[in-house]
C-alpha cells in the first residue's frame, strides 16, 4: 500500500496546491514541498528498513502491492520496489525538492498550476520506477509527458512551444512503438500459455523465437533510446532542456532521462537476453558515438543551458555503454552515473537559472569575471563544472570510471575512444569555468550573490555529489541485487565462459 501512497500523495498534493494557489502562492509552494518531503521520508524509511537484507534475503522486492484492474487482459496494478527503484526514487524526491526550491522565486505566474504539473510529473516518474505491469508502466510513461509538456510550454523561454511540441511528438511516437511491442509480447505469451497477462515477472518467462525477440526488443529500445537519449535520437533534448524553466530542466535532465536508462536495465536486459547480447556491440557503439558527439557539440555552444544539455547527451552515452557492456561493474557504474549525473546536471541547470534570473541572459559570452561580483555562486559553479568533467572525488567520476573499467573488459577499442570523451569534457568544463566565472569582468556586472535558500539547494547537491564521489558503497550495495538479477538473465553465458 505504501507504494500506492507514494503516488497518491503526489497526485493529491498537486491538486491541493492548485486549489490553494487561489488564496496564496506561498501556501501552494509549501504544500508541494511538504508532499515531496513526506515521500522522501517514506523512501528513506523503506531504505532503512531493508538496508541489511540485500545479501541475506533472497526475496526480490522490498515491498509490493498488487490489485486487479482489467481482468480480461490480466492487467493489474502491480507496484513493487527493489534497490534500483528505491535509489532512483530517492533521487526523484531529492531533485523534486531542489526543483521546487530553485523555482521559489522564478515562477510568479500561475503558481498553482505550475506546482500541480510539477507534482504530477513526479507522480508519473514514481509510477515508472515502481510499475511491474508493463501496461501500467506504459501508462505512467505517458503520464509523465503531459505535465512536462505544460511545464515547458507555459513557463518556458522564448521558443517554448516548438520545444514542447517536439519533445511530446518524439516521445509519443517512440512510446507507441513500445506499446505495440508490449501488446505483441502479451499476445505471444497468450498464444504460448493461454493466459493474458502484462505482469513483468510472468512475461519474463515467455518463450520467444530469436526473430520475435529481436523485433520486440527494437520496440522497447525505440522508447528508451529516445528518452535516454542516444545519439541519433537526441535532437529533442537540447531544445527541450534549453527552453524549459529551471525546475523543468532539472526534472528533464535529472529524472526523465533516467527513466530511459531504467527501462533498459529493468526491461530490455531481462526480457530479451539473447538479442541484448547480439546487439550489444552496436548499442555500445551508439553510446560511444553519443559520448563524443555530445561532448564535442557542448564545446561549441554559446548558450549555457544548451551547453549543459549537450553534456547530458555525452553523459548518457556512458550509461548506454555501461548497460550493454555485459558485466556487473559497468552496470553498477551506469547506475552511479545516472544518479550523480542527475545531481550534477540538475545543479548546473539550477545555476544557469540563477544566472538568468540575475542577468537575463544565458549567453556565456555575456558573462565573464563573475567571480568578482558573486564569489559564492561562481565557486559553486566551479564545483559543478568540475563534477561534470569527471573530477575524482565527485560523483560523476565514480560512474564514468566504473563504466570504462567494465567496458574495457568487453571491448577495448570502444573504451579507448570513449575515454576521449573525458578529454572533451575537460574542454567544455574549463571553458564554462574560465569564460563565465574567471578572468576580468568586461561587462561590469554588479550582481547579488547567493541567497540562503540558494545556498541550501546548491550546498545539499554538493554534499550529495561528494558523498557519491567518496563513499558510493551504500548505493552500490542497494542496487547490486537488482542489477545482478537483470544481468543474470542477459549475460550469464558470458560470465560462465570467463
Amino acid at each position, binding site marked *: 500500500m505504501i507504494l500506492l501512497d507514494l503516488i497518491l500523495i503526489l497526485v493529491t498534493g498537486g491538486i491541493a496546491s492548485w486549489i490553494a494557489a487561489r488564496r496564496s502562492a506561498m501556501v501552494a509552494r509549501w504544500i508541494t514541498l511538504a508532499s515531496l518531503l513526506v515521500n522522501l521520508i517514506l523512501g528513506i524509511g523503506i531504505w532503512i528498513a531493508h538496508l541489511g537484507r540485500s545479501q541475506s534475503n533472497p526475496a526480490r522486492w522490498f515491498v509490493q502491492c498488487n490489485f486487479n484492474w482489467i481482468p480480461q487482459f490480466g492487467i493489474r496494478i502491480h507496484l513493487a520496489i527493489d534497490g534500483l527503484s528505491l535509489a532512483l526514487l530517492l533521487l526523484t524526491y531529492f531533485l523534486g525538492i531542489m526543483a521546487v526550491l530553485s523555482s521559489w522565486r522564478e515562477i510568479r505566474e500561475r503558481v498553482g498550476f505550475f506546482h500541480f504539473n510539477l507534482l504530477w510529473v513526479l507522480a508519473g516518474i514514481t509510477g515508472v520506477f515502481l510499475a511491474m505491469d508493463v501496461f501500467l508502466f506504459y501508462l505512467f510513461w505517458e503520464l509523465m509527458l503531459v505535465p512536462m509538456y505544460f511545464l515547458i510550454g507555459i513557463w518556458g523561454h522564448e521558443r517554448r512551444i516548438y520545444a514542447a511540441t517536439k519533445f511530446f511528438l518524439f516521445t509519443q511516437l517512440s512510446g507507441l512503438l513500445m506499446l*505495440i511491442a508490449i501488446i505483441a509480447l502479451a499476445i505471444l505469451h497468450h498464444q504460448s500459455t493461454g493466459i493474458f497477462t502484462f505482469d513483468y515477472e510472468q512475461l519474463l518467462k515467455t518463450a520467444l523465437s530469436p526473430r520475435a525477440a529481436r523485433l520486440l526488443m527494437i520496440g522497447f529500445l525505440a522508447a528508451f533510446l529516445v528518452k535516454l537519449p542516444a545519439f541519433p535520437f537526441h535532437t529533442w533534448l537540447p531544445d527541450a532542456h534549453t527552453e524549459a524553466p529551471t525546475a523543468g530542466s532539472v526534472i528533464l535532465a535529472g529524472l526523465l532521462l533516467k527513466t530511459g536508462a531504467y527501462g533498459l536495465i529493468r526491461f530490455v536486459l531481462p526480457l530479451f537476453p539473447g538479442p541484448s547480447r547480439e546487439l550489444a556491440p552496436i548499442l555500445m557503439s551508439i553510446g560511444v558515438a553519443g559520448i563524443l558527439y555530445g561532448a564535442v557539440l557542448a564545446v561549441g555552444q554559446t548558450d549555457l543551458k544548451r551547453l549543459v544539455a549537450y553534456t547530458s547527451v555525452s553523459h548518457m552515452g556512458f550509461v548506454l555503454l555501461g548497460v550493454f557492456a555485459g558485466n556487473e561493474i559497468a552496470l553498477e557504474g551506469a547506475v552511479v552515473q545516472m544518479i550523480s549525473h542527475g545531481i550534477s546536471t540538475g545543479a548546473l541547470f539550477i545555476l544557469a537559472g540563477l544566472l538568468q534570473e540575475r542577468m537575463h541572459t544565458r549567453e556565456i559570452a555575456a558573462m565573464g569575471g563573475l567571480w568578482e561580483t558573486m564569489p559564492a555562486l561562481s565557486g559553486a559553479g566551479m564545483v559543478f563544472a568540475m563534477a561534470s568533467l569527471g573530477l575524482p572525488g565527485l560523483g560523476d567520476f565514480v560512474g564514468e570510471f566504473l563504466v570504462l573499467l567494465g567496458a574495457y573488459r568487453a571491448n577495448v577499442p570502444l573504451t579507448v575512444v570513449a575515454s576521449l570523451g573525458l578529454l572533451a569534457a575537460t574542454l567544455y568544463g574549463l571553458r564554462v569555468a574560465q569564460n563565465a566565472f574567471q578572468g576580468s569582468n568586461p561587462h561590469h556586472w554588479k550582481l547579488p550573490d547567493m541567497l540562503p535558500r540558494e545556498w541550501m539547494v546548491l550546498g545539499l547537491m554538493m554534499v550529495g555529489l561528494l558523498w557519491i564521489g567518496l563513499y558510493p558503497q551504500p548505493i552500490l550495495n542497494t542496487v547490486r541485487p537488482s542489477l545482478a538479477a537483470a544481468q543474470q538473465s542477459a549475460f550469464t553465458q558470458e560470465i560462465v565462459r570467463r
Partner: protein
Amino acid sequence: MSRTDFVALLPLMIVPATAVILMIAIAIRRNHKAVAVISLGGLVAAFGSLAFAASVLPRQVSAFFILDSYSFLYMAILLCAAAFVFLLAYDYLNRRQKHPEEFYLLVLLATTGAMVLVASRNFAAFFLGLELLSVALYALIAYVRAESISIEAGIKYLVLAASSSSVLLFGMALIYAESGSMELSQFTAAMIHSTGHANPFLVVTGLMLVLTGAGFKLAVVPFHLWTPDVYEGAPLPVTAFIASVSKGGMFALLLRWFHVNSGDITGVPGLVLSILAIASMLTGNLLALRQTNVKRILAYSSIAHMGYLLVALLAGGALGAPAATYYLTAYMVTILGAFGVMTALSGRQHEAMSLDSYRGLFWRRPLLAAAFTTMLFSLAGIPFTAGFLGKFYVLMAGASASRWVLLFTLIVSSTIGLFYYLRIVVVMYAQPEGAGETENPDDTRTLPVPLPATLALAALTGLVFLLGVYPILFWDTMVAVTRNLG
C-alpha cells in the same frame, strides 16, 4: 405481427411517435422548452423500452429487422448520443434561432434512421434507414437559413449523399442479381470467399459499391471530400450529431455485416478495406495539420478516426468487434464532448470556430478549457482517457490478427494527429492577449454555461475518464454482445 414482435419493436416506434407528437405540439403552439422536454422524454421512454423489450431478445421481425443484444446496445448508445445533442443544443438554439422547435423533430427522425440501420437485416431496411437519416440531415445541416455557408453545406451534402445512395443502390442490385437474396448476411461470406459464387465479379463489384455508399456516410478516404465543408457549415449541434449518431449508426451496420469472426479478410475486399483504412488514417491526419478552423480540424480528425475503426474491423476475430465497439463508444463520447464545449462557447452571431477564439481560454474559463483538453487528449489517445483504451483495444485486436502494416500506420498517423491536437491545447494555454480586443458585443468569454449544457459536459467528461480508467463495466458487455457476429 405478434405481440412479442410489437414489444421488440417498441424502441423503434417510440422515437418516431415522439416526432409525430412534436409535430402536433408545434402546430398547436411553439414553445421551445416544452418541445425540448417532450423530445428528451421520448428518448428516455425509448431507452426505458430497451430494458423492457430486452426480455424478448433475440428476435427477427419480418424480413426487415433483427433485434438482438447487439442492436439494442447500439440503439442505447445512439439514444444517449441524441439526448446529449439535445442538451447541448437547447441553449445554442435559444441564443441563435428564431424557430428552434423543428430541430428536435428532425433529430428524432434522423435518430430513428440510425436505429433502423443498426437493426436492419436486409437491403430494404438498410436503404430505408439510410435515407431517413440522410433526408433529415439535409434539412438539419441547412437549418440556419440566415447563413449562406450553412445552406451551401446543406446542398453539398444533399448532392453527394443522393449520388452515393444511388451508387449503394446499384451495388445492392448487382448482389441481388447474382445471389437472388436481399439478406445482408451474405456480406460476411462474400468478404472471405467471394469466389464461391457463379459470378464473383458481380459480387465483388456490388460489394465495392455498397462499401462506397457506406464509406461516404463514414467519410473515409476517398469519399471524405464533403466532411470539412459540411462540418464547418452545419450548426454545431448538428455537426456533433453527424459525427456521433450518423457515423455510429452506419458503422454499427458495417461492423455487424462485414465483421469476420474466424478466418482472414483476404482478396479484393480485404485489400480495398486496408487501402481505405490506411488512406483515411494518413490523409485525415495530414490534412488536419494546416487547418486553423477547429471544426475543420475535427472534421479531418474524424476521417482519421474512421480509419482506426476500420483497422479493428479488418482485424476481426474475437477481439475485433468488441474493440471496434469500444473505440466507437469512446469516440462518440469524446467528439460529443468536444463539440459540446465549442457549442457552449459559441455566441449569438459567431460560432467558436477559429483557433483564435480559444486563445488563453484556460486562464479565463479553466473548467471549460480543462474539459476541452480532456476531449482533445482523448482524441489523441493519451492514457487515462477513453481514447487511449479504445486505441489499446484496437492495437490489441490488430496485433492478434498480425496486421502490422495497419498498426504501424496507425501509430505513425496518430503521432501526426497529436500535433494538431496539441496546437489547439497550446492556444488554450497561451497567455491571454491584452484587454484591448475584448470589447466585443458578441463576447462569449464571460457567458455562463447554462444548466443543460453543464450537465451534459460534466457527464461526458466523467464518461471519458470512466471509459479510460475502468473499462470492465463496458468491455464484458461488448464482448458478450458481439460474440455471435460474423
